């Protein structure tokens, strides 16, 4: 079956209270590049602020045509948090040229869209824009932090019957976005394919810890103590990889990268309210010397017992390398015979 048999799957993309980083990331799609990826599933951007030719009136005319039902809208993508301030007016972001709050545009367009996709943690839950005192009264499309609600309300369902699809991540991996759109275009995304925070399970059912190259250090709790150390960053440097729902270490970023491959902690950027961990991001909070963030499903006591044993068993190699910024002792070359 050729993918070209049917109508294109149309996408309209708006940006509001975000940093544009999700789009910047999206443009990094590779193997194949963004255009080829979208074309392979017959996905067409009606308009995207970074890519489209149409400016000003031309763009507004298109939005109006969509609202009027003249142009079918399969997916409305929103990047950036929705701003409710000041005082519920939403005027901390009026869509340029329209004198209308962007949050209102979002609500009107969401009403006619087959699917609504929140691109990035901002659009999903408020994200960094909602951090601290949340000066702009930012929220996500269907969540306000961990609380359901947000710009469209907890009850919102798009025409397809799905809630907002929360492609959370700050930024999103390019292919979290393209694959979500492709799955929607292929009619393969059902409600049960979203997790309890509305994230596509295809990436949210993984943990960042899966495939982290520091796994061997983790196994022995051979821990990095300072930035640039090679050891596992869970014990001291704030790594939440064992709890963060994402496939960053199996999918990889920008070639061979990922946060932990880049030497810094996973800060759990796909989670609602990741922006307020309650401690310094790059420091692991401890109670009684025990890290408070423990792996998902892991009974704490077991973890502690295992950890202390593992520490006792740590091979010298890992013990030394964990706190160095390059390998001091390589793994021994041993012949693998029958024992």
């Amino acid at each position: 079956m050729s993918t070209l048999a049917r109508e294109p799957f149309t996408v309209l993309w708006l940006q509001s209270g975000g940093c544009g980083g999700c789009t910047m990331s999206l443009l990094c799609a590779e193997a194949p590049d963004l255009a080829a990826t979208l074309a392979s599933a017959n996905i067409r951007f009606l308009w995207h602020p970074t890519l489209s030719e149409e400016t000003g009136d031309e763009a507004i005319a298109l939005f109006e045509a969509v609202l009027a039902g003249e142009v079918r809208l399969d997916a409305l993508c929103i990047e950036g948090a929705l701003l409710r301030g000041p005082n519920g007016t939403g005027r901390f972001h009026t869509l340029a040229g329209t004198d209308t709050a962007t949050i209102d545009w979002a609500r009107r367009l969401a009403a006619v869209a087959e699917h609504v996709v929140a691109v990035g943690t901002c659009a999903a839950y408020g994200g960094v824009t909602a951090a601290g005192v949340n000066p702009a009264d930012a929220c996500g499309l269907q969540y306000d932090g961990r609380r359901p609600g947000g710009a469209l309300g907890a009850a919102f369902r798009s025409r397809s019957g799905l809630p907002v699809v929360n492609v959370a991540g700050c930024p999103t991996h390019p292919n979290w976005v393209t694959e979500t759109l492709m799955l929607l275009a292929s009619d393969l995304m059902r409600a049960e394919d979203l997790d309890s925070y509305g994230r596509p399970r295809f990436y949210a059912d993984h943990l960042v810890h899966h495939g982290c190259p520091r796994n061997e250090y983790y196994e022995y709790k051979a821990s990095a103590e300072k930035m640039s150390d090679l050891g596992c960053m869970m014990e001291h440097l704030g790594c939440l990889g064992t709890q963060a729902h994402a496939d960053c270490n199996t999918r990889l970023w920008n070639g061979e990268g990922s946060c932990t491959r880049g030497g810094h902690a996973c800060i759990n950027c796909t989670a609602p309210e990741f922006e307020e961990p309650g401690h310094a991001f790059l420091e692991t909070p401890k109670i009684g010397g025990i890290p408070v963030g423990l792996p998902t499903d892991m009974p704490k006591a077991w973890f502690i017992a295992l950890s202390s044993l593992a520490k006792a068993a740590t091979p010298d190699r890992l013990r030394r390398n964990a706190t160095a910024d390059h390998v001091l002792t390589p793994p021994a070359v041993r012949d693998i015979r029958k024992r």
Partner: protein
Amino acid sequence: MSTETKRLVVGPFNRVEGDLEVRLDVADGEVRQAFVNSPLFRGFERILEGRDPRDALVIAPRICGICSVSQSHAAALALAGLEGIAPTDNGRVATNLILATENVADHLTHFHVFFMPDFARAIYEDRPWFATAARRFKAAQGESVRRALATRATLLHVMGLLAGRWPHTLAIQPGGVAKGADARDQMRLIATLGAVRADLEERLYGAPLERVAEIADVAELEAWRQAGPDGDFRLFLEIAADLDLARLGRAHDRFLSYGAYALDEGRLYTGGTFANGRAKGLDPAAITEDHSFARMEGREAPHPPFEGSTFPDGADETGYTWCKAPRLSGLPFETGAFARQVVAGHPLARDLAAREGANVRARVVGRLVETARTLIAMEGWVRQLHPGAPWCAQGAMPQSGRAFGLTEAARGALGHWMVVEKGRIARYQIIAPTTWNFSPRDAVGQPGPLETALVGAPIRQGETTPVSVQHIVRSFDPCMVCTVH
């Protein structure tokens, strides 16, 4: 023919980073006055208050996804200032590579994705270069657009190798970088940069980067246009000549750069100011922000950033933007790649500045020449990395103090001013490049650089989103999420 003054409101203004609105007073087919509105306010400076200072490395980059690394560098510099440490040699060189990667990527994005597609608009279909421009630069589809995006993606593998990912890496630390590179990483970097070089030399410049970096004056530029190697650079020069882009969008011709890429000694691109044909040093203490036409409280007087504040005033009627007006010694300054090259003394940039000042063509040429220069420097830095030597110096955060971090982002001078009290951030002020360029009028009514540059822009019959205005606006490579944060 004299007509009534008409008001045009142009927006949403896309192919710029973030949302932008421009109000124009138009008469006799040209712009008489322009008012720039940055319509989005998030409040990052407030979000940062009360946090652990080191959290700035997480929060600040998220001001902007296109210059995220620059933001993180500014924050790291401020933190280093507070901790009183400097990066290790490896840390410095790796940071240069990470920064340069973002800047080159941004330049490529700007030229191919943001700027050139305007020449593929139907309005130009009668021009001799139109077919080529359309084939190569039709928005989102043109050959060169797609090739450039692919090359940009390849270039950003440098981030995968040195920074984990992009945007929003935590790799840049006050004492250096979070991850070392080994010899094989060096090889991968060489291969990556080699691939970028190859594509740009083949498609964009049609010539070795070195030849581009060495263009010494306007005459050579003209020669390149007339008989230079085929490529998108030459195509642009042709279009610029045909549309007389060198006459479009001149502002104050006062240039500002904080200086970019720390070398062993000094910087690759020296910082300072350049105005009236003279280069000068820079006194950061002379920087202030004026809130007169920003919808911000604190209009009484301009604020030095260490004393700055960010209290949005939704009810304000005189303010026409969320953007404050930065001034150096009370004057508006233009910043960006062209400004940086002028300040750094690149002969072509200086010659352009002398002959025609900053304009649509000069800004674009500045960016393309800088791209070549920076890539050449990057290849050298890769070889300066020293696997085995330390990557990150360690420091300790004082309970209180203040420090700023000044760096050059793709779009120009970026500064973070941080005040720490009781181990927490007490004040954080950010002045981004586009804050300078797209600043509103100030207390004395001086318009910002863009507002100035737009005056005189020709408007064609019936245009509601005038194409000349678009060229001028985009020639600055504006980033609206930086402008107001």
